Each structure stands twice: as structure tokens, then as C-alpha cells.
């Protein structure tokens, strides 16, 4: 089973929910995949050791200068201005390349072949029953999606018997879609404020568009207003768990300590959250 934890708004507690769920599943091996490659945080709470790291590369064209006749077919095709023919030579701007291989396909002289460039790193480490897989985007790198795809591929490679929990990046655009689209169930984490509600609506819209079953976790549920609760009721989206606004949770979090470790009274709640998700995911 693959559970994706997402949220339209950042900072609502996605990592908290994903990491606590993983920690709760002590009866089997679980893979936790941190897809927020721009700002990965799960490892700060899971503390895996030792960590294996490998570079992540993407395709970029490599132009054979002796074969290139500067016909310009590649630059006409490229939609991203990543390959440009000026006068008698062809230049590649690797940071703009989307790796579509179109330039290589259209080149009549076969002057273009496969090259590569590093966009970040993929890390993997174990801690108790948890295998954590995460990526870190190189500073200054704009293209997050290919790294997310590779992190997901790596994390889901252990076979379907393992439970996989995905911590998605915030938002509703390309990086998030990439992270949640293969999931069996999506947990949307929000908070009961106008910002939380607005972004929950976007996240729920995205999840609907992908036809994924979903449920909501309301974090800091004792603060704010009732807008999120009303929305969930009207849209018939189940509220799976409410986490109160408890300063002790915030303090434990600030020190990198998971709720289920710092405050054992929450263990039971995460266990039943997991049961609810399992039931709902199977019922589709």
C-alpha cells in the first residue's frame, strides 16, 4: 500500500504526519519517501544511519561539433530555449533542458548524443523498521521533478508488500503531482485557518483530478475557526484525525522529536489513523 501525505499549504504538519505514521507501523518494514527535495526534513526526525548517497543525473544533449552543420533543426524544435544554433555552431544551455531528447531525434546529421548533468543527490538510510529514501536538490537548481521521480522509483522498488509512506512537497503543481499520482490513498494535512482552508480546497481539487481516494488530518485543530470542518462535511471528505494545538507538540517538533515518542498518548491515535487509511484504501 502506498500512502501519500500532502497539503496545499506548507508548514501544516505533513512531515509530522508522515514520519509519525511510519514510526507507528512497528509490526512491519516500512519505506518512508521524502519527496520534498527542495527542503527535505524527514531525516531530521528519523535520524537514519549510516546513509548511502548517490548523485542524480538527467539527460542533456551532447553535440558533436565536427558533425554539426548548424542547420538549426534542434533549436527550432526545442520549446525551452535549451539548445540554440548561432551562426555556425550549436550551444546547449543545460539548466533549461527538460530532457525530452527531441533535439537528438530531429538532428539529421546524428550529431547529438546522450550527455548528463547532476541536479542533486539521492540518499537512503535505515532506522529501526524504517527505510528512509530522500533527495536533495542542488542549490540553484530549478528542475525538481526528475529528482522526485527518481526518489520515488528508488523508494518503491522494494516490492508491494511493504507499506510506503510518501511525504509530498507543498503545493498543487508539478512536483506534488509527481509525488502523489501513484498512491493508493492521499492524506491531506491542513490547519483550521482561512489560509489552511483555501489551500486545502486546492489540494482536494488536485486529488480529485487525479481520482485518488482522500482523507483530511486537521492539525492544531483547537485553534482557528470552523471553516475546514464545514468544508470537509459539505464535500463529504472524511476527517481522519485531529491533532490539538498543544505547545508540547510544537516544542518536541522544534527539537526534532516525533510526537509518538515525546507524547505516548498520541500513539493510539496514529495507530487508528493507520487502520482507517488501510480500510479506506482497500475499499476502493
Amino acid at each position: 500500500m502506498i500512502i501519500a501525505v500532502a497539503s496545499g499549504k506548507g508548514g501544516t504538519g505533513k512531515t509530522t504526519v508522515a514520519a509519525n505514521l511510519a514510526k507507528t507501523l512497528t509490526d512491519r518494514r516500512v519505506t518512508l519517501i521524502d519527496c520534498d527535495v527542495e527542503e527535505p526534513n524527514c531525516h531530521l526526525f528519523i535520524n537514519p544511519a549510516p546513509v548511502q548517497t548517490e548523485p542524480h543525473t538527467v539527460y542533456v544533449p551532447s553535440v558533436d561539433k565536427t558533425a554539426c552543420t548548424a542547420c538549426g533543426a534542434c533549436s527550432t524544435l526545442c520549446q525551452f530555449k535549451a539548445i540554440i544554433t548561432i551562426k555556425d555552431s550549436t550551444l546547449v544551455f543545460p539548466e533549461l533542458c527538460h530532457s525530452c531528447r527531441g533535439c537528438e531525434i530531429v538532428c539529421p546529421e546524428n550529431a547529438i548524443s546522450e550527455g548528463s548533468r547532476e541536479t542533486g543527490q539521492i540518499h537512503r538510510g535505515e532506522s529501526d523498521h524504517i527505510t528512509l529514501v530522500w533527495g536533495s536538490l542542488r542549490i540553484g537548481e530549478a528542475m525538481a521533478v526528475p529528482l522526485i521521480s527518481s526518489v520515488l522509483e528508488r523508494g518503491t522498488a522494494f516490492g508491494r508488500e511493504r507499506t510506503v509512506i510518501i511525504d509530498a512537497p507543498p503545493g498543487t503543481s508539478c512536483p506534488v503531482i509527481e509525488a502523489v499520482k501513484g498512491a493508493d490513498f492521499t492524506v491531506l494535512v491542513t490547519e483550521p485557518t482561512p489560509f489552511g482552508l483555501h489551500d486545502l480546497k486546492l489540494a482536494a481539487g488536485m486529488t480529485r483530478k487525479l481520482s485518488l481516494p482522500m482523507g483530511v488530518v486537521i492539525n492544531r485543530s483547537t485553534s482557528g475557526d470552523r471553516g475546514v470542518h464545514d468544508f470537509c462535511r459539505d464535500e463529504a471528505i472524511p476527517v481522519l484525525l485531529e491533532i490539538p494545538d498543544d505547545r508540547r507538540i510544537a516544542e518536541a517538533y522544534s527539537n526534532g522529536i516525533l510526537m509518538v515518542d515525546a507524547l505516548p498518548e498520541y500513539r493510539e491515535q496514529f495507530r487508528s489513523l493507520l487502520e482507517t487509511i488501510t480500510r479506506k484504501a482497500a475499499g476502493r
Partner: protein
Amino acid sequence: MKEIVIISGKGGTGKTTLTAALASLWKNNITADCDVDAADMHLLLNPTVLETHDFFSGVVPEIDAELCTACGLCVESCAFGAISPDIVINRIDCEGCTVCHHVCPVDAVALRERHCGFWYRSDTRFGPLVHAELGIAEENSGKLVTLIKKEAKALAQSVNAETVLVDGSPGIGCPVISSLSGADLVVVVTEPTVSGVHDMDRVLQLAAHFRVPAGVAINKADLNEEASRRIEEKTAAAGAVPLGRIPYDQVFTRAMVDRKTIIEFDRGEAAAAVAGISEAIRSLVRTTED
């Protein structure tokens, strides 16, 4: 005219809350909501929309079923797996690279402009707001950020505004990089948690990478004194300027629920702390080059 970008690395640290407060404190500025993925500024500023514009970016292919012979060449050639074996294009996976259009032997693939969302020019009680709405599951947030910034800048020039306040996106990727380009100052809002510290580190490296001077404000500072101190050390080590501390206070949530900025809602310590940070940013702006 100076452009100030407010970002955070980690989401939910109070970026929009601070930007809205600055908008309410400063005179003669334009606000730009560049968190196009989760644009929330309008919830606090309650804008009257003056102009709505379509945002088109890139192309989306369309297959003419009449002409298509189902040869499968496009399916094989699409590097993104966006065309199913029965030749249906999945718009979510499509990057708009046009390879399918080029390889099709019977010219069955047409290209259409891709409508990705809307952008708006609005008026608010604190002056003009340029904002946008990216369609759900759409791409090109970086291009939309660039467009909003361009429009906000043009507007600022035409009305002789002193500053453009840009509310940026979380993370360090495409939309954030777009928001940093051409900025005079970046304000990082962080919180004293392990993730706040970690994410601020990466965001400061990004600012340094693009050579934009940076200042750091700590929200919920009293949540963890030790982590707050660590943030201040890291701020200094990165050559950034500390802008001050904001206390952990429920009043921020209450102000948001009331759809007001903290300056309008509160007369206590929280508002005073934010006003102090506003002053610190103002003096820092003065030191940036013209």
C-alpha cells in the same frame, strides 16, 4: 524603486503574515503575491480585482483521431510517458516538448497554446496588488512568477512606487529562483525548529548563489531559545543580517481568522515585534545599492 522578496524555505513560517503586515505599514508600495501555487495574500488584503488576464504558457498537443493511424511512434518518442498505448495524451504528464508533433508521419498532432491560469491587477486598502492563480495540476509556476514580477515592476514605475513587496514560494526550486531574479533584498522568515534551521540554511545559500543580500526574521522565537540562537549564529555566518524575533502567539491565528494583518488586529507585543522587524528591513533596504 526597490524590490524585496519574502521567502522561507520551509512553508508555514509566517511569510505571508509578515508580507501583509509590511504592506499595511509601508506607504507607496506595490504588493505581488508570487506564491502562485498556494496564493493566500488575497485572503488578508481582500482585493477588488480591476483586471483579469489569461496566463498561457507553452503548448499542449492535440491528436486528430481522424488522421491518426495508431502507428505508435509518438508513444515511443515521448520521454515523459504522457501518451497512452491507445494514443491518448495525459495533460498532467505532458511537458509540452512537441516531440510527438515532430515525429508524427501523418501530421495528426496539432499544437495549441496551453492555458495555465489567470493573473490579476487589483486594488486593496494598502494599495495595488498583483496576484495570480495557477490552474490545478498546471506547470510553469516559474514563468508565472516572472510575469507577475514584471507586471508589478511596471506598475511601480508608472505610479512611482518606492517598493515592490514580493511574497515568494516555499522551497528553493523553480518559482523561488524566478522570484529572486532582479531582487534587491531577500527577507527569510524562519522558525526555531530543526526543519526551520535546516531549510533556512539552504535558502541563504540560494540567496548567496544569486548574490542577493539577505536578512533573517525568526518567528515563534520563544518556542526554542537554543534553536533561535543557532539561527542567529548561522545568519551571521552566512553574512546575512538579523532582523529580529517574533513571539509564539495565538494572536496571529486570530488575526488571520479575522482576515486582518497583525498590525490592524493587535496592539500588543506581537504587533510591536513585527513593526520592529519592518523598521529593520527598512534600514537594510537603504543600504542596498541602487
